Each structure stands twice: as C-alpha cells, then as structure tokens.
C-alpha cells in the first residue's frame, strides 16, 4: 500500500508504553494508528504473549501473563495496528513518519505522535563476545517466548534482575542454566543499602526479585557472585567462559551458550534523529532525552517508557497512559501519579546495586567495541586522546558507528571511551549523529512511494 494516513494520534511501538498509550487514547475517543516493527503486540517483554499456551505463560511468570490482558484490551480498543512495519524516518513540525512494510511504503501525518520505542540491552564488550553462541540474556528470553526454545547447558553472566528472571524461567522450562556468573561486587551491596528503605515503600518488585533468586539457589544452579575479568573463548564458536571469582581464583566453565547482560538502556535512535537534547545520567550510565512535564520532547511529540529512561514495564505502561491523556487534554490524575511513584520506588536501589562496572562501560584496549566494523576500545580511546571531540569525529577515522546497527550496540561505549581518552565528560563528547533511514531499506521502496502534494 502506498499513501498517507492522517490519524489524530500515531504511536511508534507496541510494548507496554505504546499499548498503554493506545488504550488510553481510544478510551478518550482519539483516532489512533500504531506502527510496530514486530509481528504482534507486546514489545520485547510481552513478546509472543498472544500465541503462548497456558504452560508457557505459567513458566514465564505473572508479569508476562499480565501482558496478555493488556494486549487483548489493545486489540479490542479500535486502534489501527500496522505490524512488521519499520519507521525509517521521523519528522517534526509537524510530526511525520515514513514507514516501510512488505506491502510497500507509506507515510503517516498525525496531529500528535507518541514514540514508545523502548530499550536496548547494554553492550557487554568482553574478550570473545562476538563468537557465535554468545547472545544477550534478552535473546534467550525471546527464543523462549516466541519459539519455546531453551539453551541446554547455558551460562548466564553479568548483572541485573533479568538474569535471575531468565534463570528461573529456564528452570521452569525444565532446562536450568549450567551456571549463573554474577558480576555484582560486595561493594555494590554496601553502596545500595542506603537506598533500600525508599525501595521498600513499594516492596512488590523487590519481593519478586528475592523469590526469583531464592528459587534459582534452591534448584542448585551453581551461582558465582562477585565475578570479575570475564572472558569467552572458542575456535569458531564459544566453548568456555573464564572469570575470577570473588576470592580472586580463576574459574573456567565449558559451555556452548553464553548469555550476557548488564542492564538495559533507552533506544536512542529516534530521539537522536530528532536532535532532541539529551543529558548524561551517571546513575544509569546513559543519556536521557529531555522531556517536559507532559512527557513531550517537541511540539505534538511525546516520548513514553524505557525509550526515555529505564523504568520497567509498569512505569512504561503508565507513562504511555499519561502521554495519551495529556494529548486528550485530560491532565494527570492523582491515581496515575501515585501509581507511577510506586512503580519507580525501587529503581534507584536497583540502579545502584546492578550498576554496570567500568570494565564493561569502558573496556580494556584489545576488546572489540563496535561489532559491525570490528573497532577496539583502544582505537576509540586513542581517537579521544588524539583530539577527536566525540564519537562522531572518531567515526570518520575508525568507521565505528558506521556499520548496519548504526550505533545501537556500541553507541554508549563509544561515547564513554572517546570521552575517557580525551579526558572530557560523556555529556561533552555527545553521541553518534543518527540520520535516516533508521534501518536499511531497498531503494525501490522509496522510489515507489506516492508523493502527495501538501497545501
């Protein structure tokens, strides 16, 4: 199909934030289009939930099952849903979307736009991380959610609640991980303790986390805490993981599957494309796009959920609602504000406890950081030292960030490394310039798009 859609509201993304926004917008009677690059609603956290049988929903846990209700309400809401559609360009003043799907290209010219593009896994650049058989923890969850596949003999390595959740899900699927190697040092527990009282004001997320950890330990999964100096090795694919345990002893585990995780970060592609100002947030070791009180980043463009700042599914859903209500002219109500505060209560504690370590944020020189172009940490640091004022200058000499992923994997690490080399802050170094198309697309698709004259 070619042509132009002109709804009141367009939403990019159908994860918790996009779904929350669509449901609230339709409750207010707003004509709504949702564009999604996935094949079905749910984003990553609720991926595959419509097709999941009873058994799979049980093993993936109650937070996942809740997604089924939300997706069902979205399907009933009357929003027009365009799956398997890539937004390759976003314009502002007025907002526009250039979209591509198997059926062809089309444009959306809404009165209002809500971006709900979610999060990405933080890169975990360690020696050997580019070997086949090494994935993110999220990748193993996706395989489980969409295809019921579980890796046999996998080692989960890194830090963050997702590792424990994944381990628990694998146990319930009948194939526990071979080991969980956690890189959270004892220092982090000490540092996070002062933030615990505030987190306990809304204790449900922490209680859930504690239950997951207890389940994994109870099942006898070997857990190594305080691990450091992780390295992966193998000939043509991963064969073992080496690390130093909390006592400093070197350990080596044979495995053909390693899932890495060091938390998630906002997906910056659309906000960077729109040249929204971003601030460096040291607490979350990532950039945060600036939003106003109504979650707007530009006139008629709102940003909701993890795509703005990591808060998790509940926060994302509520922010989606809040953005849609703002567009409907219905201000925040006390219930929404309170629910958001509760959902956010444990975030500072979790952020500090599971903060990614500097060896992950700014790895040692020999480690590959830009996977697409095979550029090392050392090359990026040297670029900063030799005068590159940020990752964009380094890009021209090194090609870091010029590969097909357009910085989705290496972006933050590149900013931090060039900044470290040049002895400046990441906020001064900035981030890769992102330009359309947001994803590669065939020229024929752009060439065949119908051009409509605007008045």
């Amino acid at each position: 199909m070619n042509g132009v859609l002109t709804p009141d509201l367009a939403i990019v993304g159908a994860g918790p934030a996009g779904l929350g926004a669509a449901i609230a917008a339709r409750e207010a009677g707003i004509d709504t289009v949702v564009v999604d690059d996935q094949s079905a609603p749910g984003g990553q956290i609720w991926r595959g939930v419509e097709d999941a049988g009873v058994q799979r929903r049980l093993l993936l846990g109650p937070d996942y099952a809740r997604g089924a209700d939300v997706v069902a309400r979205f399907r009933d809401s009357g929003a027009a849903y365009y799956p398997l559609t890539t937004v390759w360009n976003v314009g502002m003043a007025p907002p526009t979307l250039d979209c591509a799907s198997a059926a062809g290209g089309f444009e959306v010219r809404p009165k209002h736009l809500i971006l709900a593009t979610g999060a990405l896994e933080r890169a975990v650049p360690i020696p050997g991380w580019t070997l086949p058989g090494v994935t993110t923890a999220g990748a193993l969850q996706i395989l489980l959610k969409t295809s019921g596949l579980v890796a046999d003999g996998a080692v989960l390595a890194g830090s963050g609640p997702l590792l424990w959740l994944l381990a628990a899900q694998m146990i319930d699927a009948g194939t526990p991980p071979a080991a969980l190697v956690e890189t959270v040092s004892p220092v982090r527990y000490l540092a996070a303790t002062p933030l615990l009282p505030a987190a306990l004001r809304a204790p449900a997320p922490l209680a859930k986390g504690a239950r997951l950890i207890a389940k994994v330990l109870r099942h006898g999964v070997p857990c190594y805490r305080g691990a450091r100096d992780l390295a992966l090795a193998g000939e043509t694919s991963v064969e073992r993981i080496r690390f130093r345990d909390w006592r400093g002893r070197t350990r080596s585990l044979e495995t053909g599957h390693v899932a890495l995780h060091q938390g998630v970060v906002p997906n910056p592609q659309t906000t960077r494309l729109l040249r929204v100002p971003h601030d460096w947030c040291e607490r979350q070791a990532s950039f945060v796009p600036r939003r106003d009180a109504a979650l707007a980043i530009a006139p008629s463009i709102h940003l909701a959920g993890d795509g703005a700042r990591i808060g998790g599914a509940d926060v994302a859903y509520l922010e989606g609602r809040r953005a849609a209500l703002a567009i409907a002219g219905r201000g925040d109500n006390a219930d929404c504000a309170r629910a958001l505060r509760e959902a956010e209560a444990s975030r500072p504690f979790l952020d500090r406890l599971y903060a990614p370590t500097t060896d992950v944020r700014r790895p040692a020189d020999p480690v590959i950081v830009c996977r697409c172009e095979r550029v090392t940490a050392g090359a990026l640091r040297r670029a900063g030292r030799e005068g590159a004022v940020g990752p964009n200058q380094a890009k021209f000499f090194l090609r870091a960030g010029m590969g097909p992923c357009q910085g989705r994997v290496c972006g933050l690490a590149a900013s931090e490394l060039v900044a470290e080399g040049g002895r400046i802050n990441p906020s001064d170094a900035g981030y890769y310039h992102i330009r359309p198309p947001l994803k590669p697309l065939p020229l024929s698709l752009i060439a065949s798009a119908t051009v409509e004259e605007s008045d």
Partner: protein
Amino acid sequence: MFKRDERTGEPVIFVFEGEAIEACAGDSVAAALIAAGVRATGLHPVTGEARAPYCMMGACFECLVEIDGVPNRQACMAPVASGMNVSRQRGARR
C-alpha cells in the same frame, strides 16, 4: 543445543544453504536456524570470522542473511515461510 518445549505452530520447511530445515510457524528465520543447530549464520564483512545472532530483536544486525534473493535481511525479524530460500552472506556485499 536447544530444546523445544511445546510445538505451538504448524511445521514449516524451508531451505538453508541447500539443506531442508524444519521449523515451526511463528519462528523467526534466526530462531529456526538456532534450533536446527546452525552456529554460524554468516561471515563477517570486515574479518571473515563466523558470526551469529546476538540480540534477536533487530538491533545488532549480526544475523544478516539472504532470503529469497534479497540480501541483508535480518533473520531475527523475518518470520519463516514454507519454501523460503535462505543463504549465508560471506564477507562484504559486492
């Protein structure tokens, strides 16, 4: 090696590098290849090293394959279809 819990979808047969692969409806091409034990889905354009899916969500572009004659398709974003012809990409595109 990967185990499959319950087969929710109908079997779908497609071709990878001349070999028939049995997948389930609803699998992405990447998931189907991983389930079939394929370790390397391509060769890196810069170094020639074996590469394989990393993120499974369309962000990392490590899973690029040629599908039905169209190159640079993300295997993790393409649902399997009966009779699909998938092949590895070896090195840089010409």
